[in-house]
């Protein structure tokens, strides 16, 4: 049924998706806030840049990341000059690729839910002498919690399901950069259909349970539900 390397692939996938989602929430939230509220004329450019990973096919994005992040690429060389290792073919490379690839899926729902709440409540809190940071955490974030839920689910799920980027930047190394989607593809490529079916079926069931858990937790914390 599931081999040891399948289990390892599952584990790497969960770590990758978890870390990617966490990074995107940390850095995507201020970015989304900025995009929702800034009156800067050229912010449409940033909006367009955020949506750009949707345009490039994943293998193409992966190919350019490979060029950038490998030891011959500018970013890879930067890492090397600071005594580090080039991120291509390592877990760190997978994380960088996934953060870029899933960026719009986290930033866009957050931006929209920040924009939808307007400024009035926040301004009301300001008249009560709440600092901007205070207002952000006690007014805006709780109001945007459905946006956060959507962003978290989409960011996580999109990373679990990604294939082209991680195949190119990771190199399909079992135990190191081989994620679940690639493990399934490997089984299909080597005509091991029954193992592929088990793994794909398992992925579907697991994802369904995970989404179910998240949505039911969200329901419990919704207003008007005791």
């Amino acid at each position: 049924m599931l081999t040891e390397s399948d289990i390892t692939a599952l584990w790497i996938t969960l770590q990758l998706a978890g870390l990617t989602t966490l990074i995107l929430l940390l850095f995507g939230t201020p970015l989304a806030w900025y995009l929702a509220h800034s009156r800067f004329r050229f912010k449409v450019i940033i909006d367009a840049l955020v949506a750009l990973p949707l345009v490039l096919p994943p293998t193409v994005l992966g190919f350019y990341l490979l060029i950038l992040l490998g030891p011959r690429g500018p970013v890879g060389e930067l890492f090397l000059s600071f005594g580090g290792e080039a991120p291509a073919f390592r877990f760190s490379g997978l994380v960088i690729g996934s953060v870029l690839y899933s960026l719009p899926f986290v930033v866009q729902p957050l931006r929209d839910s920040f924009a939808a709440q307007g400024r009035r409540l926040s301004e009301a809190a300001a008249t009560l002498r709440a600092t901007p940071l205070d207002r952000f955490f006690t007014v805006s974030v709780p109001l945007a919690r459905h946006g956060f839920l959507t962003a978290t689910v989409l960011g996580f799920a999109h990373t679990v399901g990604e294939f082209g980027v991680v195949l190119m930047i990771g190199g399909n190394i079992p135990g190191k950069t081989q994620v679940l989607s690639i493990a399934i593809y490997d089984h299909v490529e080597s005509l091991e259909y029954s193992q592929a079916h088990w793994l794909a079926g398992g992925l579907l069931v697991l994802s369904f349970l995970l989404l179910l858990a998240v949505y039911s937790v969200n329901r419990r914390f919704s207003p008007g539900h005791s």
Partner: protein
Amino acid sequence: MQFFRYLLFILIILLGCSANPLLAATPRIAVASNFAHAMKSLAAQYKKESGQEIVLAFGSTGKHYAQIYHGAPFDAFFAADVRHPRLLEEKGIGIQGSRFTYAIGQLALWSASKGFVDDAGRVLQQGGFRHLAIANPKLAPYGLAARQVLQGRQLFTTLESRLIFGENISQTYQFIASGNAELGFVAWPQLKRPNHTIQGSYWLVPQNLYTPIEQQALLLTDNRVARDFIHFVQSPVGQKIILAHGYTLAKK
């Protein structure tokens, strides 16, 4: 905010545990997808004889080439063609002079239905099918060979509108196995697998009808085990396994 606390908790647990470290010291070999089955048998037999584990990463030769050129940590490269390992060697990547032909692929015309393909490939002239699947000749050596067979019979232009192209030889196999294409050209090793009876009907295309599908390997690092494994591949035991998977060998 309760939700975020749950989320943070889960993430911290995830981050606390790092990836499986036990596979770190063993050699890693990049292998062309079409050779996956044979390679697994080779690695299993090698493990039985030497106790050494080998990590195999399967993929398309074009992708492996780009990855190795950009520093992928592989110790050896088993390609689906001659061109890519030769290009690497010319660029000074890998151990110079270690390149060798490890297998020669054979082409087969196959249909999932019994009695559809005859043993001389006359079905190609007779027609009676809507789709003929071949691998993309630009990307896959087996696709190129398939085109040469069709061109040799002056059939390429007649059949061109009925061709469907797989991205690689596995996808081509899937087109035919699923019945979406009535027949197509696949790699003989995909059909002739140990402990596997061939479904449907086939024609093993004579090797003089297309340029030999030579597959070459290149040692990339000085890893002792990788070098030893390559010796094993060329030993009589290794060669027997390769032959059993439907490949032929280079003449010495």
